[in-house]
């Protein structure tokens, strides 16, 4: 390296700080934030297993159940999942070509034991807290 000795020292210190922070942030990400655990779990899974892991295995199981039992093009809405949440966005993605709608044919109840809505009846259930309501025919 060339340049004044003071400048060289300043740059060396700045570079050392950069490297120290760089290494510590990677370690923090991997171990304190738990990414290492996630990567280890993801490595042993296939595509669907990975989709299930990132969505949450329990929620993904319900989405798979809905996918298998709702007709394509059907409209749905959720009870028990926060509106506008990432879970809703993931559900909308995985359930397409079924579409989210304010006045749906089906209500997907997730983690709510006795959800009732006028005009809807129980259609199918995965378990006591995860089930589908269907609009009654007039």
């Amino acid at each position, binding site marked *: *390296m060339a340049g004044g000795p003071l400048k060289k020292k300043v740059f060396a210190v700045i570079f050392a700080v950069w490297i120290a922070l*760089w290494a510590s942030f990677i370690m923090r*990400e991997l171990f304190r934030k738990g990414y290492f655990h996630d*990567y280890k779990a993801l490595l042993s899974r296939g595509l669907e297993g990975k989709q299930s*892991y*990132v969505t949450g295995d329990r929620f993904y199981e319900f989405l798979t159940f809905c996918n298998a039992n709702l007709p394509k093009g059907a409209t749905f809405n959720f009870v028990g999942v926060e509106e506008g949440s990432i879970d809703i966005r*993931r559900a909308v993605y995985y359930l*397409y*070509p079924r579409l*989210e709608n304010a006045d749906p044919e089906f209500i997907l109840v997730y983690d709510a034991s006795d959800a009732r809505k006028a005009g809807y009846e129980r259609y199918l259930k995965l378990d006591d807290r995860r089930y589908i309501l269907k609009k009654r025919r007039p």
Partner: protein
Amino acid sequence: MEILRLAISIAAITFVGYNILYLPIFKKGGLPLPEKLFISYGAGLGFLSLEMLLFYFIKAKFSLKAIFIPWAPLFIANAVPFRLLRRSQGIAAWLLAMTDRVIARTKSEAIHEASRGCRRQPQRSLRYRALKIFLIFGITFEILYALFRALIKPIESYDAIAIYAIKSKIFYLAGSIPQGFFRGLARAFPHPDYPLNIPLSQTLIYLSLGNLNDQLVKLIFPLFFIGILVMLYFSIRRFASQAYALLFTFILASVPQFNAYAANAYLDLPLAYYCFASSLALFSWLEDKKKTQSLILSAIMAGLAGWTKNEGLMYCAINILLIAIYFVSERNRTVEPRAHTLERNPATEGRPEQMRGANGVAREVIGAGAVYIGIVSIISLPWALIKRSANLVNADIASGGFIPTGILQEASHKIAPIIYEFQKQFFGPKKWNILWPIILLALVFNYKKIFSGITKYITMSLLFAVLGYIFFYLASPVEINYFLSRTWSRFIIHFLPMVIYLAAYLMKEELDI
């Protein structure tokens, strides 16, 4: 098998991009092969997705044949000069000619660098070599880490899945952009007005894979990341040593926020790629106006930036503004009018030399500006037509709350949160390491340089970008604290590569490695 298909599709996309850019840009030389390949990759994705959008107008279905075959005449047209060259000279003669060109280029580069006072061959000390090895290791690590993080899980982050992946899934399952999509189905999902470069690119990858693999499709994002690093490295190499270029490339690669966005399938990094490519090419042209290929490349990449995210249009406007400022500020210095122009223009006869030069410059600004606006408009036109016909408007503007004229009133209560968020990022090492204090030091110690020569245009482009974002914060009806916390650290990514390039440019004499 899927990995092989993915690799072939990426190669095919790059090949299309290369062939599109070959005649107007690459044939004239000046760019090293890795840079050409990564520019071709982004251009290929952009042009192929634009082509897929055009399928909507002609009601055509997507298929790999239908998408790639229209480019075949271009491949043939580009291959003809190669064949003629080989026939006339033979392979050996052709290789010799290529070698001569490389030697000549290396010599001219050496002369060019010597004239800039650049030390290309610094001391080959052990420390110097160790530094280079460390930097190469660091960059390689960051690239592999970005690839790993992108490919270890499918698309799952909020905007990536809610805005972009859902559209690519719809297009793939329908085998086209369904007719009436923009007036109907698109409105069932957030932000129907967002451009479709990346969603359609994802659809293209699905078509190549033959299934909806939303894990492998994420490869396109770290490739943009590598593309930015390659462009940064070679752009710094034009005025500095290998170790110096590696140092700044490593700095960019190791910014935590930048690396994270190479893997989460958001569009901020692809936008940064197009904006950076466009800006670099523009500054190359500002340095040497004979390089019309740089002006064309800049316009193409700016147009594709607008086709990637709405913010890209702001960068198009900034570049056009810079061209105008350049000619206004340089017009008096331009003393060499074109002879033929003077002879044929009686209006300038008998006037002072400076006046004639100004006329020549005026013509050049109109010419360059027209070329730039023309290219950007051609690229933007199909999407603009769709947006207009389907009345796709940004949600903030549609709500009537976007009031550009009311920003002065808004400024009084919004400026404090904006400053607070800016300082939070400035002193936020978790996302940026100590990048911003370093940049501030570089600017303070080089304050005389930042508004001199070509550097002032780089500085201005960054200033305009920041001011543009501030304007949107002031004019937007979205609650300011929420808006800032959700967007500012992402928006910085759009111009981050240019900031690193500016720092490298400013410190080239002080940090002599």
